[in-house]
């Protein structure tokens, strides 16, 4: 109960912060910019869920599962079609407070320690009940850096080197700032505009996907007939233990909850440098047919893209822990993914044109009705 209240409080703070733009139908880019600063580390998605809820046209049909995923549909019951989008990002939580006032960090999801080390020496936010507290992840002073610490920073970086300095000199002072164990911690973030319509930022790809789905939901006409179901999934970065094929917890739960015959997963496609398939940022969204051969939904997406002159890339062999749980007999599952470069770094790169093409093809799909 206390945890729920805490999340609600954070959600309300975020909502108040963004209240001037609430309730409006913003352009896709402005919606992304508004969503971008909202924290949503895995397991702490409540602020983003609250934000999405406020932007949805009607609050009456919003359901939640106990992982925090959010379900919304426009009609009186769900149609055959569901859009499923992750809404969690990499992040940390306070795992200890040193007597000197430094916060120690941990994360629930295992990953590259090098990515964690990208935050050393940079600003962070602690999301407390009383509001965000600014801090920095300490680095040793260069002039007095010992060879041992230098070697460790270069060859074995990671969270064991993370001391979050919030300007407190004792555990008591840290508490006075409102910091508690397990408070969420995220990097300070700002969108960087690059040439050619590209932009970069922490977990920007996920926020773009959330914005695309939200904008689609805003555009669905009010009707008593069955409407598409939209799912914003929490905890998709958390793996189901011993799952084969690899499954994300939030996606597995959503896959169990929904009855749609056609599922379109809107997620990111992390481009790997030098990858054989040559999927790149700036050449359109990526169509992944989850069942090996092309499904009707996949064919329709291709047809729409061709007829409207929208760029589309194909990655038939792509597999992901978010797509896998939806693969069921008698269900068509496709992924329509936003290619991102430098995934999970503080500068995840997306192309605005890819995002707009993704939005355009899905809008056209909705306008055409049945698949």
């Amino acid at each position: 109960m206390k945890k729920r209240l805490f999340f609600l409080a954070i959600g309300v703070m975020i909502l108040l912060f963004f209240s001037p733009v609430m309730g409006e139908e913003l352009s896709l880019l402005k919606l992304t910019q508004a969503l971008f600063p909202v924290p949503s580390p895995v397991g702490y998605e409540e602020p983003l869920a609250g934000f999405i809820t406020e932007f949805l046209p009607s609050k009456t049909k919003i359901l939640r599962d106990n992982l925090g995923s959010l379900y919304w549909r426009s009609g009186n019951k769900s149609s055959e079609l569901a859009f499923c989008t992750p809404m969690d990002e990499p992040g940390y939580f306070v795992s200890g407070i040193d007597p000197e006032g430094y916060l120690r960090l941990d994360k629930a999801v295992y990953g590259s320690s090098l990515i964690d080390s990208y935050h050393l020496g940079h600003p962070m936010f602690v999301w407390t009940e009383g509001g965000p507290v600014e801090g920095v992840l300490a680095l040793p002073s260069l002039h007095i850096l010992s060879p041992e610490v230098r070697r460790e920073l270069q060859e074995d970086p990671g969270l064991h080197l993370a001391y979050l300095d919030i300007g407190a000199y004792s555990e008591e002072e840290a508490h006075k700032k409102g910091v508690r164990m397990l408070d969420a911690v995220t990097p300070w973030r700002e969108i960087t505009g690059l040439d050619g319509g590209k932009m970069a930022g922490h977990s920007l790809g996920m926020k773009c996907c959330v914005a695309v789905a939200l904008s689609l939901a805003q555009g669905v006409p009010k009707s008593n007939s069955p409407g598409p179901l939209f799912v914003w999934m929490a905890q998709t970065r958390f793996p189901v233990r011993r799952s084969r094929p690899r499954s994300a917890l939030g996606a597995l739960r959503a896959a169990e909850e929904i009855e749609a015959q056609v599922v379109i997963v809107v997620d990111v496609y992390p481009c790997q440098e030098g990858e054989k398939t040559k999927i790149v940022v700036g050449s359109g969204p990526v169509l992944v047919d989850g069942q090996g051969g092309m499904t009707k939904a996949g064919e329709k997406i291709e047809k729409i893209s061709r007829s409207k002159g929208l760029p589309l890339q194909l990655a038939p062999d792509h597999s992901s822990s978010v797509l896998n749980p939806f693969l069921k007999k008698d269900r068509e599952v496709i992924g329509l993914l936003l290619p991102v470069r430098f995934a999970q770094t503080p500068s995840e790169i997306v192309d605005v044109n890819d995002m707009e093409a993704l939005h355009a093809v899905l809008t056209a799909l909705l306008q055409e009705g049945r698949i």
Partner: protein
Amino acid sequence: MMRRRVLLSIVAILVTGGVLISQTMDRQDIAWKMLKELVLIPGVSGYEKEVAEFVRSRLPGEVEPQMDDMHNLWFTVGKGRPHLVFVAHTDELGFVVEEITPEGTLKVSNRGGFLPQMYEGHAVQIHAKIGMVAGIVMPRSGYSRSDTELSPYTTKDVSVYLGVSNREEAAAMGVSVGDSITVRKKIVEFSPDLLSTRAVDDRAGCAALLEAAHRVDWKRIGNKTVTFAWDVQEETGLFGASRLAQKLDADYVFPVDTFVSSAGPFDSKRFAHLPLGKGAVFRAIDSSNIAPRVELAKAIAIAKANKIPFQLGNTRGGNDGSVFVPHGAVNIPLSWPGTYSHSFIEKIHRSDLEALTDLIAALVRDWK
């Protein structure tokens, strides 16, 4: 009649005193505010003109500043002896574009010493002739795999991505070889008295010196000469200071720069363990200088007489004053305690900057 005169005199004294006190109070936060403006101005070593121009524009009207072709800036007041020189450096750490690759990414060289891995995966600003251009320092290949074997990340590994795919597109953005690069800066304010950001080294020194220039009554410095200087290219080899050392015939030099404190969580407390918020610092011994004890004692006496909080310590690193010593000057470095030196989060306490500003003004006034 007599009583009325006495009363009027008391009122006059109170009013004058009040005005003076309020003027002093009004200036209490100026160095701090100035610091927050100064750190955001790009000024990689060799590219300090914008910082120097900012400082020149904020100098008191009564002084006559000069600037040389390196963009060293200084003014001198008085004609007698001794000649005191106070110097802070305007440059900061960063990169310079060395090559635009056929793929349109930038290869760079560093200006000053730092860990290049701080930049990996982060946004940078390229200061092109046409204005600021954004870029991303590309993460190394295999960064997302947990089994990637890590080797030291050096400046040679740094590649800046601009969003373009070839050299021509990069050039069309206005980027060219020789442009300077800084990280995108952010000031983290832990409280009204404590902040972290890039380039506190040595914009805090610049701010203290600039504000002290306003606090000094230049008509009452006695029979001595005083020079305030903002010099260039300290981080790459004290080049600006070397020029000034030849030009200015200094008896005493007071470099105003960071005292690298070991108050951070990684640092050995064996030396340099001076806390933040406890006052200005006499950086008595560092890697480039040992301040003569007798002269240091004179400076300490002035701090004590003016009730200025101060600390005394030794640390590592060099200072601009060291190149004045071979010309005969006595070098007494003045500092504030700072943690996380040469990073993007250099940390400083407002009261230390305030004490440092007061200390500079007091030394100008009281040094004999």
